[in-house]
């Protein structure tokens, strides 16, 4: 069970990385080759639920395995585990933030856009915390192929976030977007003020 816990942990990290990058794409209305825009957000949602399943298995297997003593409460209440108190605490913090994002997304219809977005932004905190937790809770990721994988994940998310910031800075101001679209679809841009 201990090995199952570590393996699902690694898979969860990979999935969460994919979810992060898809989320960054969704915010900028980016596209993936061969997929329409709405499919990107659908993929983001489905992968996040899949990642949540792996995280839950990762946590439960660690708790119920007798190899080390981790109380179930320590999986959600940070810094209460006798084993690796700090690094597991980070895992609990990340899990709590993740749960908040998932629950608010499932209830999104009943929330204001601002409230939902505020909670969803916590993902930017959740992922790095999860990454640090992965790196230092056990030595698995600290050498070999898994180290390269972990660094690759970090590089991908940092790169994605940078792309998002640049894309946001290049944004057309809201009031000018329609004119830009209108001249783009009419072959010869027409006079708009002549009427």
């Amino acid at each position, binding site marked *: 069970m201990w090995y199952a816990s570590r393996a699902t942990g690694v898979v969860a990290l990979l999935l969460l990385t994919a979810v992060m990058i898809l989320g960054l794409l969704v915010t900028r209305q980016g596209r993936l080759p061969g997929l329409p825009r709405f499919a990107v957000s659908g993929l983001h949602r489905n992968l996040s639920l899949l990642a949540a399943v792996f995280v839950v298995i990762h946590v439960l297997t660690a708790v119920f395995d007798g190899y080390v003593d981790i109380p179930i409460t320590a999986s959600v209440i940070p810094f209460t585990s006798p084993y690796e108190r700090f690094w597991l605490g980070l895992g609990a913090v990340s899990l709590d933030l993740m749960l908040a994002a998932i629950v608010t997304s499932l209830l999104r219809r*009943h929330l204001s*856009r601002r409230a939902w977005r505020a909670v969803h932004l916590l993902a930017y905190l959740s992922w790095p915390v999860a990454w640090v937790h992965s790196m230092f809770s056990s030595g698995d990721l600290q050498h070999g192929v898994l180290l390269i994988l972990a660094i690759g994940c970090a590089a991908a998310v940092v790169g994605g976030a940078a792309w998002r910031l640049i894309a946001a800075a290049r944004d057309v101001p*809201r009031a000018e977007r329609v004119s830009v*679209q209108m001249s*783009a679809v009419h072959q010869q841009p027409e006079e708009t003020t002549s009427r």
Partner: protein
Amino acid sequence: MTTATRQGSGDHVSGMGETGELPRLLPPAGPGGQAPDLTAHLARHGRLPYRERPGVLIGDIEQAGLTGRGGAAFPVHRKLAAVLEAAGRRGKTPTVIANGAESEPASDKDAMLLWLAPHLVLDGLQLAAEAVGADSAILYTHADREHDLGLRLRQALLERQVAGADRVPVQLALAPPRFLAGQETALVSHLAGGPAIPAFTPPRITERGMAGAPTLVQNVETLAHLALIARRGPGWFRAVGTGPEPGSMLATIRRPDGRPRITEVPLGMPLRDLLGDLAPESAVLLGGYHGTWLPAARAAGLSLDNRSLAPAGARVGAGVVISLPADRCGLVETANVVRYLAFESAGQCGPCLNGLPRIAAAFAELARGRSGPRTRADLERWAGLVTGRGACHHPDGTARFVRSALVTFAAEADRHERGRCSATSARPFLPIPAGSARTEKDWM
């Protein structure tokens, strides 16, 4: 004629012979048709019948069956009750807003009402404020009518202040000349100092509107009806109209020269009678630019109430009924309007921002006889793709308008695809406001 002094210049027709009681809202057409001052207004309608306690008026409004006259026809008592309830629950004092920002370029009835009967609207604003326990009120109207209407409204407010008629202070606020400026979340955003763009709901503004307090927004005509129901009772209100849709409403008709004609009619009036000498020859536009085109033959058998119009896919809306003159092309008219509507997108939601310009471009090709074999199918598909996918109903209303044109003018579209057009006049008929938004300032 009164209205010749107002910018748009149209007429208002009063007195529908067979329904002796009308007009209710507009003053009887007299010499010059001057707006009555407060004294004349009170002489005709009597004093403001304050109920002295919040909530009391709501029962009367429910019995009267008054619905919103801004186009959505939402039951007024339910909105009043929602604001009153939210105010009590959240311990916040509500604000009431009279919405005179008539967004439909084809409609002129709110401007006409404010011009001819400002005191009736302001009475309704006071009574609605009392009904929901509000301590402030705002009268919101279009800035582009400022040089005459704004002055008149300021005078009316001053008169009331001097006479001590108002219990709640009323501020006048001006809307930017945008199609969406009257949409209620856009209105709240604008009054809070931001651009007049629709917001995502929830929260509903009856829950959290101006300064986070429950906010009641009612169309100015709705408030005028409310002021009369408060005085004369629900039974009087129901004396005209149909059972499910009682009362009267202001309708805007357009003559072939484009000038508006405002008339107060009972709900359920046959469109044939309403149009009178403007009998439909080719097609009728119902409900304005978010409305529906119907073939003349179909419209001739219908009446001005939602029960009659619903099977035809149309709605009463804000009472716009326009007969397309026989010498104009419905496709060209529609293309002009769709282009305008695309420019009026707030640019917030992807489907509206990307979809409407594309729909407008394709419709322009159809109107100019340069469409391809797939243009109509594309238009139909895109109209389906944008529907229901915005923060507000701008994409939905535009899609409805486009689809009804494709059906109503199908034969004309066939002709256009063969390079012909049946119109003999190229002069645009449906009114299109000048200028589109270029910068954030145009939305403020």
